[in-house]
């Protein structure tokens, strides 16, 4: 009995309700987040303070901006393993422009984000036009870009002008600016993915690429655009993080691609493509941020933290696969 058949026949048992909630990933994540927060709030009184909650939201801002781009790619059936390296790269470009070339912050930011978009375009062309597998391309480029970062900034640049740091330090209505960047970007792309015809096509491409191509969608062009968006958003995130840390270091962004894909998968994306929402990616990032915060607050050893996060991902995808299997 599939869930749909149960619904049609009006059979609602506890089992089917629970199954429906688990399958509606957004609902399930909200439930998990609420449960987790309640648990954290009652066990540790430092959790529900304004300072802690604001810190959590600020910390997830970078990851969630990148995850917006990653979610669009996942919806279309791809992913971008270079986001971490691009983040570090754009931060390095910005730092170079500011420190070595003495540019005005706005110009430096523009050039940095543009460089991210260029890398994205390159990625997109290799994958969509030349036909290289996106996993291999991502693996190769992530090393190449990371190497280029080392080449251009060596051990790092630690001297950045104050006007640049304000990108991250400034506040608006009591919240730090990165949170607002995250909100604006997420709302914009959520609206686009839902309502805009161009972006809706990514779901079709992810659902069935051949059918999409036959129905007149310019798949290569759209793929290139999606990689450019991912590169550009990684660029914005790179600028924000570099401003936040007031330094550009070569290891910035390592591990970001894995965290981002994890958050998107938690948020409902499927590696096959055709599924996922920006809201889901945001909730996925939020959930992981809360888990991270909880582990810090409860003084869990760092070694255990990666085990917990990996375990969560494994449990989530296993439940997913088991549910899908029992439906057949």
């Amino acid at each position: 009995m599939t869930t749909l058949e149960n619904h049609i026949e009006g059979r609602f048992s506890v089992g089917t309700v629970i199954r429906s909630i688990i399958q509606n990933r957004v609902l399930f994540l909200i439930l998990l987040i609420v449960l987790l927060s309640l648990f954290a709030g009652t066990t540790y009184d430092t959790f529900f303070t304004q300072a802690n909650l604001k810190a959590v939201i600020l910390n997830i801002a970078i990851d969630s901006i990148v995850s917006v781009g990653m979610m669009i790619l996942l919806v279309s059936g791809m992913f971008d393993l270079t986001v971490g390296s691009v983040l570090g790269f754009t931060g390095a470009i910005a730092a170079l422009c500011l420190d070595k070339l003495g540019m005005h912050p706005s110009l430096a930011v523009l050039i940095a984000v543009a460089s991210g978009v260029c890398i994205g375009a390159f990625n997109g062309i290799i994958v969509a036009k030349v036909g290289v597998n996106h996993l291999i391309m991502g693996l190769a480029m992530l090393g190449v870009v990371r190497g280029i970062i080392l080449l251009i900034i060596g051990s790092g640049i630690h001297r950045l002008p104050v006007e640049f740091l304000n990108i991250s330090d400034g506040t608006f209505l009591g919240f730090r600016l990165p949170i607002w960047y995250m909100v604006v970007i997420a709302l914009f792309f959520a609206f686009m993915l839902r309502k805009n015809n161009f972006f809706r096509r990514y779901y079709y491409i992810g659902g069935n690429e051949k059918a999409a191509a036959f129905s007149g969608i310019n798949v290569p062009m759209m793929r290139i655009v999606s990689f450019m968006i991912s590169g550009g958003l990684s660029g914005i995130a790179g600028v924000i993080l570099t401003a936040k840390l007031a330094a550009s270091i070569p290891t910035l962004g390592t591990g970001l691609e894995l965290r981002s894909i994890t958050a998107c998968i938690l948020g409902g994306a499927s590696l096959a493509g055709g599924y996922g929402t920006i809201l889901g990616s945001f909730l996925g990032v939020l959930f992981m941020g809360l888990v991270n915060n909880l582990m810090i607050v409860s003084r869990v050893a760092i070694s255990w933290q990666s085990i917990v996060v990996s375990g969560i991902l494994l449990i989530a995808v296993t439940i997913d696969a088991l549910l899908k299997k029992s439906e057949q």
Partner: protein
Amino acid sequence: MNTLEKRFSFSRLLENRAAFLGILIVLIGLASSIIFKAFFTPINMKSLILNLSTEAIVAIGMMILLISGCFDLSAGSVFGLSGAIAARMMYINHYPVWISVLMGLVTCIAVGAFNGFLIAKIGVNPLIVTLAMMGLVRGLVRIAAGTGLIGFPAAFTNIAGTTLLGLRMPVWYMVVLTILFSYLVSKTVFFRKFYYMGANEQAAKLSGINVVRTRIISFMLMSGLAGLAGIIFSSRIESALSTLGVGMELRSITACVLGGASLAGGQGGVLGAVLGTLFVAVINNLMIIGRVSTYWQKVVTGTILLTAVTLDAVISRQKAD
């Protein structure tokens, strides 16, 4: 032209990736020995082969997986796990060497079985499973070994320390495993199944191959080989570091893809994996000898991989047209 007369053609040779790599390596080797006097010396050659021996063992396991259409991103973490567990048992619990080594290997094979179970039986995507396991196992490595353990009994260090006919043992382990698996993968019925599974999983299943069980075995094999390589490497450097193996899975996949594997599955050979590892090692060695900044090494390796797969894609495009 009569097809019978076309027994030897250059394009056929080029398609055999292992042969192509072999020729390329020889050419580069010849060129390098002329440009760099230090390249073709016994010392350099010995250290080159010694350094790549453990990576080649991991590449063999990865190639078998790639042939069957999967891959394992947790290989690097498993590489570190075996050494960490063996070290912990010897150092802290004072178990004899062979039990510690055995426990290390068994743990790795168990990780492989778990991977295989989730991927083949439950049906979870291999990328996600092995990605998550990469993090999870790395956490286990840190718990087992802290930042690192040093100080092993002689019996352990002898695993990699002894010399035979002028070459260190890791080289011989690599040679034996290469010959063994090269034969197994190309000649035995069991390993042929991986090619079928990789080419068309549905057809393989319908033709009677127990895909689930064979997949689980392939993952166990991968993790077992990674664990073995980890033990050998830990023995060689006489310590178990928690950072051992970071990035190894990517290098391993790079070597295999250079050696002829396709991510879609169904292609590749053990010899290709080892030659791919050799190729990358030679390039790295040349960069060290040529005093090229280490920062360039990542860029060069990535560019080589990118160029190789791009050429591949372009050539197969032209063939299809």
